[in-house]
């Protein structure tokens, strides 16, 4: 579904990805694991067009991915950034509507009603400002907003960071529901247990390159890889 082939990317003069190659498959969840600074978030930002591809190729459904973020979004990829990036001057309702207005065509899978069924707490906070929400509610809003884009591929960067365990469990359960529906996902996550319980496939990134590829079950069983690449 999404293929990165020998991708080099980074911030200005600083190169972070050094020929990264990976594949996310249709209907499966791919977890990208690695230590801090390995290049996980940079990979997601490069896919979204937020950082330029210096060399290599990214293809989505066999076609080269566009360079600009709004074109990437229109190909069917939705992004939940690590910082959630809720728009502070928009209400919760407006944060949702801004995504729904562009991708919520008649007959679309994800509607306002359906995301509010998934996250009922957002329904109680619709008229609140985007930043009046707790960290957990902001994460729910970021995921709900991405779902309203009716994506074919959902990309999540550290969805559990800074959240209380009870909210982590809730986010886990919701992502499990989405997985059960067959939504393709790429998940960058520091929480090893969270990532491997959701993922089908795993790649481990170190110094901007993929150093381990396999199934979630395989990495759970491979203590050497966990110790070497993840410090678990």
């Amino acid at each position, binding site marked *: 579904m999404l293929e990165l082939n020998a991708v080099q990317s980074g911030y200005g003069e600083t190169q972070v990805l050094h020929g990264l190659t990976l594949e996310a498959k249709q209907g499966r969840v791919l977890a990208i694991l690695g230590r801090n600074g390995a290049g996980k978030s940079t990979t997601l930002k490069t896919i*979204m*067009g*937020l950082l330029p591809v210096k060399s290599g190729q990214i293809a989505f459904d066999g076609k080269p991915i566009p360079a*600009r*973020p*709004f074109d*990437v*979004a*229109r190909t069917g990829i*939705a*992004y939940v*950034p690590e910082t959630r*990036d809720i*728009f*502070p*001057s*928009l209400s919760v309702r*407006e944060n949702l*509507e*801004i*995504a729904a*207005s*562009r*991708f919520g065509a008649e007959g679309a899978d994800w509607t306002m009603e359906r995301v509010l069924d998934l996250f009922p707490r957002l329904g109680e906070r619709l008229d609140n400002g985007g*930043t009046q929400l707790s960290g957990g509610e902001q994460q729910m809003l970021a995921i709900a*907003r991405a779902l309203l*884009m009716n994506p074919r591929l959902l990309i999540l960067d550290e969805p559990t960071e800074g959240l209380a365990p009870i909210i982590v469990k809730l986010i886990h359960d919701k992502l499990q529901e989405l997985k059960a529906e067959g939504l393709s996902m790429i998940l960058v996550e520091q929480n090893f247990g969270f990532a491997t319980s959701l993922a089908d496939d795993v790649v481990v990134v170190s110094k901007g390159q993929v150093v381990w590829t396999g199934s979630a079950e395989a990495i759970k069983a491979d203590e050497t890889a966990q110790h070497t690449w993840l410090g678990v």
Partner: protein
Amino acid sequence: MANDLGFWTLQALNALQLSMLLFLLSIGLTVIFGLMHFVNLAHGSLYALGAYVAASLAAVGGFWMGFFLAPVAVAGVGILLYSGLIRRMRKSGPMAQVLVTFGLIFAMLDLTRIFWGDLALAIEVPALLDGRLSFLGVEYPTYRLFIIALGLAIIAALAFVLGRTQIGAMIRAGVDNDAMAACLGINVERLFFVVFCVGCALAGLAGAVAAPLLSVTPDMGLQILIPTLIVIVIGGLGSLKGAVAGSLIFGFVQTFGAVLAPQLASVLIYALLAAVLVIKPVGLFPAKG
């Protein structure tokens, strides 16, 4: 004087009229700044251009022709500026943008001199708005009341568009975080272009309505630039509320300062600006909170 209610009403109306004129200029500049992170110091030159175009058109077809067509003409110049210069300079950093748009002020200054000469032009107030109206117990020029009403109407229209419509939500989202807005499928670059053109049209409108009050001179854009920047810094970048608050504060401090403390009038607004920068460096109502 202190007990004369009419005197204070008159000063308040003067302050309000100055505030509305500054608002028309600052709203475009502040939203362009907030949304595009682009420092367009030549915004004042578009105001001067609006005044000149309005004066020329008024000479041919009367005040209303200038009033309606000057904003369109200035928006047209804005399109040329955007396509020829600003789009290419979007990523070149504030220092390069300041230098280029500062240079543009002088280029436009000379162009107005070449086209219209150095002598000041004047526009007659239209017959419909000539004379005085009794308002809150004072006789006040109808044309100045018209400027206040026009400013209030534009504040209301912009508040509606920015606060209640989908495109308004997109603009606010773009000001908050343009990268995330783009990740939601919003063509932020196109949005910039629309906002830039509307901002230019409002600068042209400000020039057209100011023309009957002030002499139309080549340097009028340069003169208005500093007050406009002060409005934006006091109000905070990128927000309608900030532009309204900054314009009102500037208008009232300037007008009442000149009446109550004439010896301090010229420094009062700068003292206030310094105080805002010390207490709240991001301004009173910045879009990014």
